[in-house]
Each structure stands twice: as structure tokens, then as C-alpha cells.
């Protein structure tokens, strides 16, 4: 008996795991058929999930937290038992603007702090207050951009204009001179670079080396009412994610995602994020970023509660929500490591022993306690060296005061 699950997604490279689970038989092995619903805005994806038109969605992790906290239209308790990827964003700025930054693009990308200060110095020289496109206020992209700007004393609400635009319209908006750059999921940054409109200025994985990106979000009550379907879905996604991470499959994956039913962009552009060979300026040799986008290794899919709380800390920092113990608890419980453990208990997926950890504390890969298999966590530093202790949110937030 096959169960059909409807899952909404946006045409982005990091929807890969869902596409592969559906197309390459991983879902079928679990007795599932995935009906993937291509959606063009985060608002519509959210509405489809909240109002029950789909059972799950490829969602921006901060949006899942925001909907649960009642910050984005109809409040609904959402639950994310699985992360679909880590990293994968890129900030690009108009080629003219980028002239004020470090000209060697490899050095520029390797030094986010220096580049942030270069950006701060360039603001006054630009012909208007720089307008930077972001895909949603509750996106990992916007939060990372704010984090990066503030590190150099730039107030993202005062010194620049953040304009919300769908990823697929960013390149068009650059052409029309409506924005001076944007941060979005791939392949859209690469598309702007390839069109000769923009240069890469910062890479998500260099700002936070293991940055939370998309999660698989459910309505909390659906998740508790349907443990069997949930577990089967997670058991289909885990091997699909491992397949996506395997360099031997990147070519085939790029080809699959280039299909009009998915991303509908040239395979060559999509491949850049998968291999991490990023072209920062049109015509130049690619720069290697092996962790540009990750799907499975290092227990990427594991929904660390501390990561939901890090997102929450940033929403508080930017005054999008008031801090209270109750809000923190609600935000933290959006991520559901308990479900991840239950669903993947009898598989060979490495299983962290803890549900929370310090975020940003690892300089070097570290072997950690795992209930099964070998688990090595990769370096997860923030570029400014801060460490987030989920037990001490107030202290962490107090550390930012001088920057605002």
C-alpha cells in the first residue's frame, strides 16, 4: 500500500533531497509516493502548509520558528524533525559596487570580516543608500546578512535598505537597477554572476561555517497524528541525502534539478553550488568551497535544538520578537531531534547523543559521542568568533548591544 504525501517546495538547489527521494526510488522503498508541489513564494508555501493543503514543506528554518511564534500571518505550531541542508547562500553585489571591495575575489571571500568593513566604508561612496535584496525577513539569508553587516557597525535597518524579492526575480531586479545586490539561495547568485551583473561578495558557509538553512516542516498536530508516515518519510530522505552528498552524483543531480518541474535553470549553474566550485566574477576560475552546500555528512540533517534557539536569538536581537522564557521554549521545540531519533533508530545514520550543543565552538573537526556509528562534526565557527551557548541566551544577546 502506497501512501501519498504532498510536499511544497521552492525552485532552489537545496530542494535536492526531496527531488531525489521522489525520483530515484528512495520514497518508493518506504511505500511512499511524494507529490512535490512547486511553489513560487514563501508566503504561499507557508499557507499551503498551515492550512493543510500539503503535509510538509521545504521551509526556511527561521520561517518555521516565526510561524510558530505567531510572527508570520496565521500562527500555527510547526515542527521540523529533519534539516534538508546546511549552507548554500551567497551574497552578490553589483560589479560597480564591488570595485570598492578587495579586488582579489578569493581573498575577499576568505575574509568576511575585512569585506564587511570594506562594505561599510563603501556605503557613503555609492550613489544611493545600498538596496540589498533578501528573499524573506524570516530567512537564514536575511539573518546572516544582518549578522555580517552589524559586525562592521552597519545597522541593517538604517544604513542599507533590505528589499524582499523572490529569488527568481532577483536577477531581473538587478538588471532594472532596482537593487544593488542580493543574498539568496543558489543558483540565483551564480545566475547574476554569470549574467555579468554582479560579483560574489560573501558566502554563507564563510559567515557561519555550518549555517542552518532549509528544514522539512510539518504542522505539529499532523506530525503527532501520523508517526508512521513521518518515520517512513525520514527513512526515505536519509539515503537520498547521502546520495546527494556523493560527488560522483553531482552531475546527475544538477541535471535532474535543471528540469522545469524543479529549478528550471541550466545544470551548469546548479552544479556550482553542489561541487562548491564557485565562480565569483564572470569569466574567472572557480574558487573551491567544499562545504558550500551540505546534505548528509556530519549529521547535517540532525535538528539541533540549539540551532533553533540561535535563530530565535537573532529574531530577538533585531526586535522581531520580545524575549521571554515562554517564547524561547516555543522556538526551541520547533526542532524535533526526538522524532529524528525515533524515525532513524534502526538505520545506519549516525546519531548524536545530545540534542543541544554550543554553536560556533569548533575550529577543527571533532569526533563526538554518537549512539551509533562514527560521527565527526565539522568546524562550525562564526566568522567573528562568537560562541552561542543555548543555556545563556541573555548573555549572548547582551554581547551585541555595543553593535547597535
Amino acid at each position, binding site marked *: 500500500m502506497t501512501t501519498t504525501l504532498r510536499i511544497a517546495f521552492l525552485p532552489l538547489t537545496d530542494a535536492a533531497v526531496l527531488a531525489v527521494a521522489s525520483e530515484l526510488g528512495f520514497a518508493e522503498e518506504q511505500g511512499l509516493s511524494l507529490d512535490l508541489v512547486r511553489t513560487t*513564494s514563501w508566503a504561499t508555501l507557508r499557507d499551503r502548509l498551515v492550512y493543510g493543503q500539503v503535509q510538509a514543506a521545504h521551509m526556511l528554518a527561521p520561517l518555521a520558528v516565526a510561524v510558530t511564534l505567531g510572527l508570520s500571518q496565521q500562527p500555527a505550531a510547526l515542527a521540523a524533525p529533519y534539516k534538508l541542508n546546511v549552507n548554500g547562500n551567497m551574497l552578490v553585489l553589483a560589479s560597480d559596487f564591488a570595485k570598492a571591495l578587495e579586488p582579489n575575489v578569493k581573498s575577499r571571500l576568505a575574509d568576511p570580516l575585512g569585506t564587511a568593513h570594506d562594505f561599510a566604508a563603501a556605503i557613503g561612496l555609492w550613489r544611493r543608500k545600498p538596496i540589498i535584496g533578501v528573499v524573506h525577513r524570516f530567512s537564514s539569508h536575511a539573518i546572516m546578512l544582518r549578522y555580517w553587516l552589524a559586525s562592521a557597525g552597519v545597522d541593517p535597518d538604517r544604513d542599507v535598505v533590505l528589499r524582499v524579492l523572490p529569488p527568481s526575480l532577483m536577477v531581473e531586479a538587478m538588471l532594472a537597477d*532596482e537593487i544593488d545586490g542580493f543574498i539568496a539561495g543558489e543558483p540565483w547568485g551564480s545566475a547574476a554572476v554569470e549574467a555579468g551583473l554582479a560579483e560574489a561578495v560573501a558566502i554563507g558557509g564563510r559567515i557561519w561555517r555550518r549555517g542552518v538553512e532549509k528544514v522539512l516542516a510539518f504542522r505539529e498536530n499532523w506530525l503527532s497524528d501520523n508517526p508512521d508516515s513521518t518515520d517512513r518519510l525520514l527513512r526515505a530522505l536519509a539515503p537520498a541525502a547521502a546520495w546527494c552528498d556523493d560527488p560522483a552524483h553531482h552531475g546527475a543531480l544538477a541535471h535532474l534539478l535543471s528540469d522545469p518541474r524543479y529549478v528550471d535553470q541550466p545544470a551548469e549553474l546548479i552544479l556550482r553550488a553542489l561541487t562548491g566550485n564557485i565562480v565569483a566574477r564572470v569569466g574567472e576560475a572557480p574558487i573551491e568551497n567544499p562545504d558550500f552546500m551540505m546534505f548528509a555528512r556530519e549529521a547535517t540533517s540532525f535538528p539541533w535544538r540549539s540551532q533553533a534557539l540561535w535563530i530565535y536569538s537573532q529574531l530577538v536581537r533585531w526586535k522581531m520578537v520580545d524575549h521571554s522564557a515562554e517564547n524561547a521554549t516555543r522556538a526551541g521545540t520547533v526542532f524535533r531531534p526526538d522524532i529524528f531519533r525515533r524515525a532513524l533508530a534502526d538505520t545506519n545514520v549516525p546519531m548524536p547523543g545530545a540534542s543541544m550543543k554550543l554553536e560556533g565552538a569548533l575550529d577543527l573537526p571533532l569526533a563526538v559521542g554518537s549512539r551509533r556509528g562514527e560521527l565527526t562534526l565539522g568546524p562550525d565557527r562564526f566568522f567573528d568568533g562568537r560562541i552561542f551557548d543555548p543555556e545563556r541566551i541573555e548573555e549572548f544577546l547582551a554581547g551585541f548591544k555595543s553593535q547597535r
Partner: protein
Amino acid sequence: MRIVIIDDSGLRATVLEEGLRDAGYDDIHIVPPRGAFVARLERMAPDVVLMDLGSPSRDTLEEMLTVSRALARPIAMFVDQSDEAMIGAAIDAGVSAYVVDGLRKPVLELAVRRFNAFARIQSELDEARTALSDRKVIDRAKSILMKQRGLSEQDAYALLRSSAMNQGKKIVDVAQAIIIASDLLGGAL
């Protein structure tokens, strides 16, 4: 009551506007989601905003609703959150609504009906367009046959039809095959 329709499709917006005017609403504006549409919308201070659920610009609109000072009154997606059937119907029809101050159920019901009507017109149009292009394909195959085989137009069509019947295919598919074959063989036309 000021209603703003944000829509890319001129025809759908017109279908919706007509319906609303027939129902007695007369302060209706259509704004395409291009360029500085958010600033225009802000100046209009609408009571109801209707938008295609499939428009990629919904996130841009919602951001404006979140930060706008001109539209400071609370705005909620859909009229009555408890009305699940209405919400389902709206999502199925592909319309989203942002409403200022209280219930506007009649407007949303009307929008749902009109969006559905538009979907019907659209599929009829698509069918008509397909029929038209089928006709062109068949005409081209006929002229190939007339030239290559020295047939009259009537005989060329009869040949197409009988081949289609013998192979259990649609005439347009047989015609398409003839055109491809003729192109491959470097035939004229």
C-alpha cells in the same frame, strides 16, 4: 471600500474587476506587481488587497504589510480564520486576500468564484489555441503531400485521415510525423 487587485494577468484582473463592479463595489484598482508597486499600493491605502496565490511577489507584499506605516491597522490573511472551507476554496482557486479591519467574506467569496471562472476561460482559451495550432500543422502536412505526391488538397487530407485511422493515431500526430520526416529529408517547405 477600496479594493486593490495585484495581478500580472490583465485578463484575470479584468474578470475579477467586472465581478466586483457587478456586485456594487466601485473603488477598484488594478496594480501589476512590477517595480515600485509596493509604494503605489501604500499610497492607495486599500481596505482589501487581492492577489494571485501563485504570484512570486507575495513575499514582497507581505513585507510591506509588516513594515508599512500607511497601513498600520492589522491585516490578516483571509477573512475568518475559523472558516476552513472558505480558506480551502480560496487556496484551490489560487487567490489570496489581505483584509483591513474585520470581515469581508462576500468580497472573498466573489473573488474565489471569479478566479475559478477565469481558470475555466483560460483552459478554454488554451484548448482553442491548441486547436488552432493543430490546424496549422495539418495544413502544412497537407501541402507537403500535395507537392511531393502531386495530390489535390482533398486527397492529401483523405490520405492523412486514412493513415491516422490505420495507425490508431490522431491526424495531427501523423501530420507532425510527415513534417519531421520532410525536414529530415531536406524536403522543401
